[in-house]
């Protein structure tokens, strides 16, 4: 069991602390992290700044000239006792079109071979799954997700790429991610979504949130191009359902 019976409060310098709830990738654990974050912001405690949820910990920035470490720790411990997933608002499900063809999925064939599947089977299994967003970050808007069938568990690339095009949908280990800006990468790129996960020109630049569910819809190149044109014109909104 790597969910701690009590939260571990770990100092992160003079202006942040980490509330660590466990040490594994586990949806129940992550939901408790998100619930703790939610309750903390509802509390509106003076001196509490930004929070960064992740798989198993909540990083909390604070102003020590306003709230002391001990007082903040006590509040976090108290909130933790109430931090259950049912305090969270209903989850959203976001449908993302994804083109697995040709250059869009430039590592699809290699990944399929590595997994002993045909490329078509890999696409069917990948697009048929429902994904859960544990948290968003590393680069702006990048979702850390799981949800793939066990068949698709794959070691990361031995030699990470230096550049991955934004929108690339990729897998590594049990995880799936979508690169949000051009960046290095160690996951296998299976396809690309024309939807922008990060759009610095938009009023709200980030599409996905921690706790969201994601489904992929396989599209062909023609539809990719059509949606990309709508995205460029600011006239495409992905389908979002709230449970």
């Amino acid at each position: 069991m790597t969910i701690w019976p009590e939260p571990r409060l770990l100092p992160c310098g003079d202006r942040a602390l980490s509330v660590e709830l466990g040490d594994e990738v586990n949806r129940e654990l992550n939901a408790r992290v998100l619930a703790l974050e939610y309750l903390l912001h509802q509390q509106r405690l003076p001196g509490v700044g930004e929070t960064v949820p992740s798989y198993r910990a909540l990083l909390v920035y604070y102003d020590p000239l306003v709230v002391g470490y001990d007082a903040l720790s006590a509040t976090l411990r108290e909130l933790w006792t109430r931090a259950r997933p049912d305090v969270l608002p209903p989850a959203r499900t976001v449908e993302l079109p994804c083109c697995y063809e040709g250059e869009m999925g430039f590592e699809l064939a290699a990944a399929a071979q590595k997994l002993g599947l045909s490329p078509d089977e890999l696409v069917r299994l990948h697009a048929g799954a429902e994904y859960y967003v544990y948290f968003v970050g590393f680069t702006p808007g990048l979702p850390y997700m799981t949800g793939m069938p066990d068949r698709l568990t794959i070691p990361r690339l031995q030699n990470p790429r230096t550049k991955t095009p934004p929108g690339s949908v990729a897998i590594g280990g049990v995880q799936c991610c979508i690169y949000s800006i051009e960046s290095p990468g160690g996951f296998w790129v299976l396809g690309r979504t024309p939807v922008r996960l990060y759009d610095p020109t938009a009023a709200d630049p980030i599409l996905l949130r921690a706790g969201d569910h994601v489904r992929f819809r396989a599209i062909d190149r023609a539809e990719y191009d059509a949606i990309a044109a709508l995205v460029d014109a600011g006239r495409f909104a992905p389908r979002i359902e709230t449970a």
Partner: protein
Amino acid sequence: MSALLVQDGGPLTTIQDLGRFGHLRVGIPTSGPMDREAFVLANRLVGNADNAAGLECTLLGPRLEFTDERLVAVTGADMAPTLNGAAAPAWQGLRVKPADVLRLGPARSGVRAYVAVAGGIETPLVLGSRATYPRGRLGGLDGRALRKGDRLPLGAITAARPLRVRPDRIPAYAGEAEVAVVLGPQDDRFTPAGIAAFLEGPYEILPQSDRMGARLKGPFIEHTHGHDIVSDGVPMGGIQVIGEGQPIVLLADRQSAGGYTKIGTVCSFDLGRIAQIKPGGRLRFRRVTVADAHAMLRDSRRALDTAIE
């Protein structure tokens, strides 16, 4: 309209304010000045609020032309500023008039100089901030470093007299620094020998260092069992130790989360010292408790508030 004209941008001059807050949880870094103290002093010298947008200049400064009368101040790295070709003092407010040209040269000591102009730079607010985050093409001027021909809108000014930083409070950037560090959050993933090596140092700053992080080279820091963790949030000043047992101090434009062990966190009030060490310069870490760190933060705020005369 009042503007600051960029005759030459220098290699990496960006618009910064104190930073963009509230979006780390979706991976958008705070950005803001790498040396907060020098940045804030520049603003105060010209009568601006601490958060007014100014320029961060890296290693080699820009050439700037003014279009009206107002105050300007240069702080941080010593880039031997000149006004219309004549040496102009840093760390104090200077009065400029239309067509005056301020030039900053190569850094003689330190790495990052700050230019504050009375009224502040008034490029559009993006997510509540004017700070530039070039990797995400966000904020500043079109999310990028300045270049020749740029025209930066300036805010309205109120009457203010030029101030100066007390000479004994002007930092000497020695190319070496000792910074306070609180151990954790993953100090339990290092052996006692690893922690001792880390605290003994010194570590050399490598040229690959940038606004994301300072890459260091020095004594090997031994892990108990590998450097991978279940990814978690990366605090400002967090010190990741990667496979080769070498540390990286994560800074203003850092990734919001990561999967490497973090041995400690550099305290906020000492981050500016790291920002001013040139590649090849050396850094040592001194262990403090959280309570020490908070007392030191108060002292550093007090020092900042009494630095100007």
